[in-house]
């Protein structure tokens, strides 16, 4: 717990032509904190995440990030070279579809080792042993280090993606519906894993999900989005147990069991 946020997002906006995907998004993220962004499909939560993760360029606002060595940089206006270098070395992005977040043409070990090589690691033995440790950490048998991800189950692919994203010990990890499309039992295992790894590694996370159960389990705080705007924000239990906005009440009351 430090008293300065690691990320300060202010007035972030993105429109596709005349359709506004997100507008005036403001929030702070502290070191070690997990923030959930919830809302229905089309609420702009994935656009928000993609703006933060550098997949698309925002039209407005600032994304001020405190670098590991200190010093703040506005990622929204930084040069592309600098932004990509920072995102590569200090951020992770777990995509909803493992096909977007993994290289299916190379082995599990290479998938985990690539971020290390991307930041300059040049010792094969060390890369391989680190990859092996991370496979174990995400409960993938280290014997499968040379197998292609295409032979893995959906849950394993997602866990492999998590290993690939945490191997560089990032400061911030973005997760887009990390449990989407998985069986309930597989979801539980994955959620437990994410929860544990995020705690153990002291990483901050922004998790986009439509599943309030996921938010309840993982997040310290929540943003509720509707039609591109944040309609309510606060501590996760406050939002779920005492929702104020009509839309949040609707979301909470629509869940079978939270």
């Amino acid at each position: 717990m430090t008293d300065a946020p690691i990320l300060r997002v202010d007035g972030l906006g993105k429109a596709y032509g005349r359709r506004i995907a997100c507008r005036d998004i403001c929030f702070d993220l502290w070191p070690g904190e997990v923030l959930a962004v919830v809302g229905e499909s089309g609420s702009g939560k994935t656009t928000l995440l993609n703006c933060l993760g550098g997949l698309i360029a925002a039209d407005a606002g600032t994304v001020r990030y405190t670098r590991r060595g200190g010093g703040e940089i506005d990622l929204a206006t930084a040069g592309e070279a600098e932004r990509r270098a920072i995102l590569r070395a200090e951020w992770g992005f777990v995509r909803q579809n493992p096909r977007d977040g993994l290289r299916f043409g190379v082995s599990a070990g290479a998938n985990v080792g690539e971020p290390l090589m991307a930041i300059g690691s040049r010792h094969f033995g060390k890369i391989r042993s680190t990859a092996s440790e991370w496979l174990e950490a995400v409960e993938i048998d280290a014997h499968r280090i040379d197998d292609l991800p295409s032979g893995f189950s959906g849950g394993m692919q997602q866990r492999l993606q998590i290993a690939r994203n945490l191997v560089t010990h990032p400061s911030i990890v973005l997760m887009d519906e990390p449990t989407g499309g998985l069986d309930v039992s597989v979801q539980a295992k994955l959620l437990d894993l994410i929860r544990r790894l995020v705690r153990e590694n002291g990483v901050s996370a922004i998790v986009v999900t439509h599943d309030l159960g996921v938010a309840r389990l993982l997040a310290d705080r929540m943003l509720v989005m509707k039609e591109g705007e944040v309609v309510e924000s606060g501590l996760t239990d406050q939002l779920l147990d005492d929702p104020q906005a009509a839309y949040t009440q609707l979301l909470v009351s629509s869940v079978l069991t939270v």
Partner: protein
Amino acid sequence: MEPMIRIEALAKTFTLHLRGGIALRVLEGFSLDVAAGECVVLRAPSGTGKSTILRCVAGNYRIEGGRVLIRHDRALVDIGSTSPRELIAVRRHTIGHVSQFLRVIPRVSALDIVAEPLIDREMHVEAARTKAGSMLARLGIAERMWTLPPATFSGGEQQRINIARVLVADYPVLLLDEPTASLDDANRRIVLDLIVEARRAGAAVLAVLHDAEDRAAIATRIVDVAPMEVAA
């Protein structure tokens, strides 16, 4: 004596947007101070907002009128207006809240659930597990169950995990919502003893108990909560 909990003219209304925006007023003008070493038990007919008071004090419900102040790090923190960040810190170090239900976490063992508040306060994992284990043992949870996730436990067992998780961490402020519900006599006795011990050790306890005998066993003061009339 300086209060640990200060409730000033607390008011709470639930606005139900899904029911045409009707407003349910459940609390109004409720004030109370609880000092360290004191155990205040709230008494009222069910449905009068006793749990709501505890939840407002814990910051789980938003405070709509009045103030709740909690002594945290020697200063009084205004729960209703403090930042989410500060509230997390207050909860981590100061407020132990036993709600009526345990939130089970998939695949996390009973022992780790109980040890978690200690680990969150930077206690070494092994030391935290040892302390959690002795608390579970005290509450009569057999050692063979410690490694199991409590999702499959009985209601009484889950309730004891819930209590262990809070009492293990020596919080200066304890908020207990029907801590003895669904416990058999022997376990109820143990829980009441633990609460008295915590109070004697200096905790400020605010509890809701419907059982008169239990109230008498732990309370240093009993406060009646006046029922509200439902306003439209």
